[in-house]
C-alpha cells in the first residue's frame, strides 16, 4: 500500500514499515522542538504550575513553526540559486537566555502561551487548532529572522486577494487576520513565504466520512504542511497516510534545549522526532483540525489554488477559494 504524506506526494513505492523509519519523513517533518521549556528559563515570565498542560499543544505549534522555517530555508535563494545551509532555525523556538540577554525565539513556548492569553486562553489551558493558528500568526509578526507570512483562512474560505496583499511586499496595509510584517529587510524578494492555515471542523463529534478522501488528498499536495489536530484530548501532528491510517507524530515529549551559539554547527538531534511515527485509523481523528500549507512563491500559491480547485471537483469540499472578499463586504445584515 503506498504511503503518502509530506514530501511524498507522488506516492512512494517503499513498504510502509521501512518508510516509517526512513530519513525523508524524519527530515521533512522536523517535529520536535528543543526547548525543555517547562523545566528551565521560564520562571522570569510565567510560573508554570502544570507542566503537562502547557507542554503538548505548545510543542505541536513549534513543530509546525520550525517545520515551516525548514521548508523555507531549504528552497534556493532567489539571487544566487544556492541553498542556504545550516540555518539558525533553532532561533525560532529558542528560550530566553539570561546571561548575555539573547532574546528568546519568537516561537518560544512561553511566548506562545502568552499570546494565547490574548485569545482568551489562560496559561496552562489547552488550545484548539484555531487558537494555535491564531497564536502562530501573532508570533510570526514578531519574528525578525524569517519574513514568513502567516495567514489563517477563517470560515473555511480562502480569499486569494487577501493573501496576495499580505505576501506581496511593499503593500503596507494588512487585514485583521494578517500579521503586519513590513518585509523591508527582505526587499529583494517579491513574495513572502506563506504559511496558510485553514482551521476546519469536519463533523460534530466524529469526522464525517464524506471528507476523509479530501483530507487524504491534502497530504498529497506538494504544498502540504500536514495537519494539526488529534484524537479527543490529545494533540497530534499528522504528516501523511497509509490506506485508511493516518501517520502522526506525537509531540508529548520534552527534549533538551539547544544552547544558542553563533557557531555554524549545532547538534540538531533534538529538533527531530526520536521515536518513529505512529498510526491511527482516520475515523478516530477528532473533527477539529487545522490544515497547513506552505507556498514559497506566488507561482506556488497559484499552483496550490489550481490543485485545490481540482480537488473540489472530485471530492467533497473542505473549503472554498474566493478571488476577493467583495462577496462578503456587506455581510452585516440589516435587521
Amino acid at each position, binding site marked *: 500500500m503506498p504511503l503518502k504524506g509530506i514530501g511524498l506526494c507522488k506516492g512512494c513505492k517503499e513498504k510502509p514499515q521501512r518508510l516509517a523509519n526512513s530519513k525523508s519523513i524524519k527530515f521533512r517533518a522536523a517535529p520536535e522542538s528543543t526547548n525543555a521549556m517547562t523545566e528551565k528559563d521560564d520562571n522570569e515570565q510565567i510560573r508554570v504550575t502544570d507542566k*503537562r*498542560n502547557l507542554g*503538548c*499543544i505548545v510543542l*505541536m505549534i513549534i513543530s509546525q513553526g520550525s517545520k515551516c522555517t525548514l521548508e523555507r530555508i531549504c528552497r534556493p535563494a532567489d539571487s544566487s540559486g544556492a541553498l542556504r545551509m545550516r540555518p539558525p532555525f533553532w532561533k525560532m523556538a529558542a528560550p530566553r537566555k539570561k546571561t548575555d540577554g539573547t532574546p528568546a525565539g519568537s516561537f518560544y513556548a512561553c511566548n506562545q502561551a502568552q499570546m494565547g492569553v490574548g*485569545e*482568551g486562553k489562560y496559561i496552562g*489551558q*489547552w*488550545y*484548539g*487548532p*484555531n*487558537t494555535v493558528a*491564531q497564536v502562530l500568526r501573532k508570533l510570526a509578526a514578531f519574528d525578525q529572522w524569517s519574513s514568513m507570512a502567516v495567514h*489563517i483562512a*477563517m*470560515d*473555511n*474560505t480562502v480569499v486569494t486577494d487577501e493573501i496576495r496583499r499580505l505576501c506581496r511586499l511593499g503593500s503596507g496595509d494588512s487585514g*485583521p*487576520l494578517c500579521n503586519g510584517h513590513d518585509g523591508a529587510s527582505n526587499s529583494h524578494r517579491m513574495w513572502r513565504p506563506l504559511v496558510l492555515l485553514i*482551521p*476546519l*471542523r*469536519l*463533523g*460534530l*463529534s466524529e469526522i*464525517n466520512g*464524506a*471528507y476523509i478522501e479530501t483530507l487524504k488528498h491534502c497530504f498529497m499536495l506538494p504544498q502540504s504542511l500536514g495537519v494539526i*489536530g*488529534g484524537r*479527543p*484530548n*490529545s*494533540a*497530534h501532528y499528522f504528516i501523511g497516510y497509509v490506506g485508511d491510517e493516518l501517520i502522526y507524530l506525537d509531540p508529548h515529549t520534552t527534549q533538551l534545549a539547544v544552547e544558542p551559539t553563533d557557531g555554524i554547527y549545532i547538534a540538531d538531534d533534538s529538533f527531530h522526532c526520536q521515536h518513529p511515527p505512529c498510526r491511527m485509523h482516520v475515523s478516530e481523528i*477528532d*473533527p*477539529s483540525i487545522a490544515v497547513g500549507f506552505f507556498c514559497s512563491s506566488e507561482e506556488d500559491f497559484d499552483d496550490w489554488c489550481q490543485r485545490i480547485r481540482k480537488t473540489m471537483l472530485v471530492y467533497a*469540499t*473542505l473549503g*472554498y477559494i*474566493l478571488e476577493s472578499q467583495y*462577496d*462578503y463586504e456587506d*455581510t*452585516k*445584515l440589516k435587521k
Partner: protein
Amino acid sequence: MPPLVNSTSLELNTTSFKQRKRLDSRIHEVNRVKIRYPCKIPVIVERSHREKVLPSLQKVKFLVPPEITMGQFVSMIRCRLSLPPSHSLCVMINERQMACLSMTMLEAYTGQRDQDGFLYVSYRSHEVFG
C-alpha cells in the same frame, strides 16, 4: 476574557428544537410561516449540544431571505453571538455537513432541508487538545 457561557443559557439549550416539538407541530409551523412570509426560508439555528464555550442564541428560529449567501448568514450568527473575528465558529448543516459559504440560502434549503420543512443549522467552536 471571561467564559462566554452563562448558566441560564446552558439550561435553555439542554434540549434541541426537534426534541421540544413533535413532528406534526413543526410541519404545521412551517406551513403557517410559509403562508405568512412566502419569500422567506425558515431556519433553526442551535448551539450543538456538546458545545461549552460559545453562548447559545436567544432565539433559534430565523426567517432568512433566500438570496443571501451562507457566508452572510454565518456572519449574522457571529454578530448575534458577538464573537471576535479570530474566534472559530463552525457552522454545520444537519449536524454533519460543513456549510458552503458561497451557497445561497435557497440552494442550501432545497438540498438539505429536513422533512418538517425547516433547515437545521448548528454551530460549534473548535475542540481543544492537550
